[in-house]
């Protein structure tokens, strides 16, 4: 893959965010490219969730710049993010158990004819989206979500994010609650999203998952982006070291990180 040359689809530059006296994000640079899975890793409290919430518009940021397709953009709320094509799949899924798959996928953005819900169109689009992701585990799109397994729910949540011709999909711990087989299914789906040309951000604690699908790995440590490297260039142990100590023998060095943003800051850290 020749990702290094590609222009980032979404880019954060020098992002700062604090809650009162607590500085949660400190001068964070982060670049996401289309067609790649970028893993965002870090210990609890490193600022992963805050970073995602800044991107999704749930939080504003204090300083810094967000660029989308090369232009600076402002994201005030989740609707702004959705309008740009940024979708987030949250850890707790945010699905309604008492609604069916179609209703969940279109929730808040229903297709209507006059005031009446256009169920046939929505059902058709939902089925097409699932088929396009080669999802074979869901029997009927009119199934209630309460009857689905954890992996199927995750699949629906991801399909919901893809439905809107989104360009960036951010997945928050999608495999945290899943068994082995379902984890494999979901990871496969994550890979497929990137292969379809989407920019995928995978937040995970699980190094096996990360190395299974990620093209790049970005490491947050105490609110600073300490490394953004190609997955091929680092080992398990080095990433773990970066997560826990904020630096690693080789991977933390300026020369080892990719060209462009992030490298100088890593040098300052190390």
């Amino acid at each position: 893959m020749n990702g290094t040359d590609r222009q980032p689809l979404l880019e954060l530059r020098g992002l700062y965010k604090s809650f009162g006296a607590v500085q949660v994000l400190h001068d964070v640079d982060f670049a996401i490219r289309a067609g790649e899975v970028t893993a965002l890793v870090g210990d609890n409290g490193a600022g992963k969730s805050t970073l995602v919430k800044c991107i999704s518009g749930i939080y504003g940021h204090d300083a810094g710049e967000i660029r989308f397709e090369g232009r600076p953009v402002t994201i005030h709320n989740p609707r702004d993010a959705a309008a740009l094509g940024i979708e987030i799949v949250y850890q707790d899924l945010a699905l309604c158990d008492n609604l069916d798959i179609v209703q969940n996928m279109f929730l808040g953005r229903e297709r209507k004819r006059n005031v009446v819900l256009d169920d046939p169109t929505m059902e058709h689009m939902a089925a097409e989206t699932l088929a396009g992701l080669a999802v074979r585990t869901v029997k009927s799109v009119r199934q209630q979500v309460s009857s689905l397994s954890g992996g199927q729910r995750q699949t629906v949540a991801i399909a919901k994010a893809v439905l809107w011709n989104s360009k960036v999909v951010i997945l928050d711990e999608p495999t945290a609650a899943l068994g082995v087989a379902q984890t494999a299914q979901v990871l496969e789906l994550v890979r497929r999203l990137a292969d379809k040309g989407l920019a995928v951000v995978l937040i995970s604690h699980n190094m096996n998952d990360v190395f299974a699908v990620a093209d790049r790995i970005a490491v947050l440590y105490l609110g600073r982006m300490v490394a953004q490297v190609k997955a091929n260039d680092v080992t398990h142990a080095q990433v773990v070291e970066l997560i826990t100590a904020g630096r690693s023998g080789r991977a933390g060095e300026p020369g080892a990180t990719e060209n462009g943003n992030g490298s100088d800051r890593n040098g300052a850290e190390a």
Partner: protein
Amino acid sequence: MTALQTRAEPPAATATTAPLSSYARDYLRRISGGELGALPALLGIVTLCVVFTIADPIFFSAANFANVLTQGAAVTVIAMGLIFVLLLGEIDLSAGFTSGVCAAVLATALANWGVPWYVAVLAALATGTLIGTVLGTLVAKIGIPSFVVTLAAFLAFQGVVLLLIEGGTIISITDPVIWAIANRNLPPWLGWLLYVVSVVLYAAVQLGRRRGRSRRGLARDPMSLILLRIGVLAVGAGAAVYVLNLDRGRAITIQGVPIVVPLIVLLLVLLTFVLRRTAYGLHLYAVGGNREAALRAGISVDRIRISAFMVCSTMAAVGGIIAGSRAASVDANTGGSNVLLYAVGAAVIGGTSLFGGKGRILDAVLGGAVVAIIDNGMGLLGLTSGVRFILTGSVLLLAAGVDALSRRRAAHVGLR
């Protein structure tokens, strides 16, 4: 990890018609999974009818049938409104006295201000909507639990009714139009005409939807199931209209479908349409099912919650108008005593969950029928008030117990 792939059916994009037998199997599976739907209410209606008929054959007469319908009308309509609030997992304990306040407004407007009936009705409905707005705002914006807000309103509205009717007096309702709502009947020909129109419309909607779905290659219900539905409606409603069109008077001729019946059918269709076919209805279910998910989907949760209380109180106003019409008067007890309990009971017996996220308007009609039959039958048997209160309380508890158990069963089977 690419090797792992569970084998299952492809998503039902191109599926067509499943046979009727698979629907029957599905239905049985849902029931054994705790999704009882209309079953308890229907069983209740049949059982109660058999028991009361054996105890007193008068129960199974045309006159009493019409009686049950008009007796249950007000509670059923209040229950319809309550379902909107129950869908969110909230409760409105003041719905009964809201209906009392609105009935008092109606009666006062007619008797003291001398306005035409439609102005009085509008005033009553507007009062209901206003009450709902206030209750909903207190719950959604201030964050007081609905249980507390409406318990306070329950007490306060009793006082409002007393003030409106100036102490212990009774205000008579003499307006012929208002009086007719719960006391007059449609001419038999009009009953049959409405029956034919309803059945034809229902059939047209069912068949039209099926054709629309099959044109787009979506899964559709089997024709036999649709014909079965239309047939059940045609036979059931036809029998009811036939019986109601029999002469049930003793000295004078009394026949025809009571006017409240088409009114309830109209509300049933209208509110079912709102809940099932509009985005607003879907959002009510979404907020009741998972408020956080609804919020993230960009649904204005506060507005949905306020609106549910508005619908509930407005429907309570309609119930109050029906109750006032039936009694031809409004007094301090209108909408009081067991009206609220009956209405909540009707919704729950019909299958609406007290935990939110589950319920249909039809539940109010089925449950309302059960409640009306119990009330009517116990009256015919001449049971004392003490026994009647205990029995009604037990039925309510039974229904709530079925709700809670079916929820646990569903969790066990993995349906919820």
